C-alpha cells in the first residue's frame, strides 16, 4: 500500500505491507481491501477480506510519537553533531 501526497506531488513514505486476509491476486470481484481515511485525515484504515483492519499513518505530525517509540531512544548530542552539524543547536529529537 503506497500513499501519495498529491499537493507535494511525491510519495508519502515507503510502501506498507498490509494484511488483507485471504488475498487472491487473481480474484476479479473485489480484489482490493476496503480503504477509508479517518475524519481528521491522519490515518488510512485498510480493511481486509477477513474483516481485520490496519491503520496506516498519513500525517507525519501525528506519526512522530510512534516513530520515537519505535526508535526507543533519543538522538545523542554526538549523533546530532555528526549528522545535523554544528550550524543548528542541539534539540531533543525524541523527548522521553
Amino acid at each position, binding site marked *: 500500500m503506497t*500513499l501519495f*501526497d498529491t499537493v*507535494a506531488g*511525491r*510519495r*508519502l*513514505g*515507503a*510502501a*506498507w*505491507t498490509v494484511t488483507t486476509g485471504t488475498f487472491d491476486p487473481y480474484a476479479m470481484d473485489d480484489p482490493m481491501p476496503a480503504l477509508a481515511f479517518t475524519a481528521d485525515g491522519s490515518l488510512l484504515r485498510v480493511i481486509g477480506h477477513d474483516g481485520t483492519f490496519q491503520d*496506516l*499513518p*498519513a500525517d*507525519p*505530525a501525528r*506519526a*512522530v510519537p*510512534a*516513530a*520515537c517509540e*519505535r*526508535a*526507543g*531512544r*533519543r*538522538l545523542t548530542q554526538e*549523533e*546530532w553533531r555528526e*549528522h*545535523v*552539524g554544528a*550550524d*543548528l543547536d542541539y*534539540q531533543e*529529537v*525524541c523527548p522521553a
Partner: protein
Amino acid sequence: MNSQARRCSSVIYNEPDPLIRHLRNHDRRHAAPRGPVEAGPLPHEWGTGDRDALGHRRELGEAARRWARNGRRPEDLLRGTALRQTLEWTASTHLTLNTTEREFVEASRTGSARQSRRRRLVTTSVVVLLIASLTAGVLAWQQSARSDETGRHLADERAKATARRLALQADALRGTDPVMATLLGVAAYRIARVPEAGSAVLSSLAQQERSVFMAPTPANEGRALSPDGRTLVSAGADRVTAYDVATGRPVRTFTGIGEAPVTAAVGPDGDTLALARGSRMELWSLRTGKRLGGGKWLPESSSDDGRPESIEFSPGGGYIVVRDNMRSGGWRSRRRARWAPRRTGAGRWPCGTPAPGAPRDRCSGCRVTWWEPGSPPTGGSWRSP
C-alpha cells in the same frame, strides 16, 4: 481710603491733564511732592506709584551708568524680567530718560531681540536636527527590520535544506540502521516540516525491520536464528558463536566443529544446533558445546565437500531436512538416524510431476512445502505442492 482719593489717583494715572503734563515735563524727584501740593490734598496711591517710578528710574539710571562706564558691554545690558519690566515702565511712565538711559534701554532691547533671534535659530536648528535624526532612526529601523526579515528567511531556507539532507540520509540508512534512520527522520521533521522529512517519518513506521544486527564474522556462511529469534548462531572456521540479537553481544562460543564451511540450523528447543557439510551432518548442543551425534544425510557418499543449500528442523524438532540442489535428505533427530522421503531415483526431490524425458533442472526452482508427520515417517511424508 476715601472715594475722592480713588478718583484722584485714577485721574492722575489715566488722564493727560495739565498736572500730569507738568509732571512729565518736570521730571524731577521733587516734582511729585509738589504736584499734590498744587492739586490739593495728597492722595496716598499717587505718592506711592510715583515713588515706584522713581525707584525704577534710579535703578535704570544706575544700570545705564554702569553699562556706559564699563565700556558698554553686552553682558551688562538688561535682560529677562528686568528688561520686560523696564520696557513696560518706560512705555507708561511720564518720566523722561536721558540719552545714556535711552541708549541703554535701546541696546538692551536690540540685544535681547538678537539673543532671542539666536535662541530661535538654535531652537530651529535643534528641531531640524531632531527631525533629521528621527528620520534617520526610522529609516535605520526599517532597514534593520528588513534585514531581520531577510536573515529569518535565510535561516528558514537553511533549516529546510538541512531537513532535506537529513531526510535523504535517513532514507539511505534505513536498510542498515533503522533506529538511526528513524531518529534522523524525526530530527529532520523537527528542524523543518518539509515533505521529504514527513515522508521519512512515515517511512520509518512503514519499515518492517526494527533494527539490524551485523554479526562480526561475515565470512561465516553457517548462520541460523533461534526459533524465538533472540539468538543468532554463526558457525564456521572451527568456531560457533551465539549472539544476543538485541544487544549484539556474544553469549556463547565453542570450538571443534571443523574448518570447512557449514550450513546451520537451531532446533525449536533453542539448544540443538544442526550443522551440515558435504554429505554429513552433525548435531551439537549450544548450551554445553558438546557434539550430540552425526552421520550421513545422503545414502551415497559425496566427494563434494561443499555445504548444502539449507537445513531445517521440523516445528516439533523431531525431524531435520537437508536440501542441496536437487537432492534432499531427512534426519530423525531424536534417534540420530537418517530417514528419507519417498526415494525417487538417487535421492532427488520429487518436485511436481516432471514430464517424462524433461531435463532434471526443471525441478530446481520448485518450492517445498513440508508437513509435520503424525507418525514416524515412512515414504511419503514429504509433499511437493
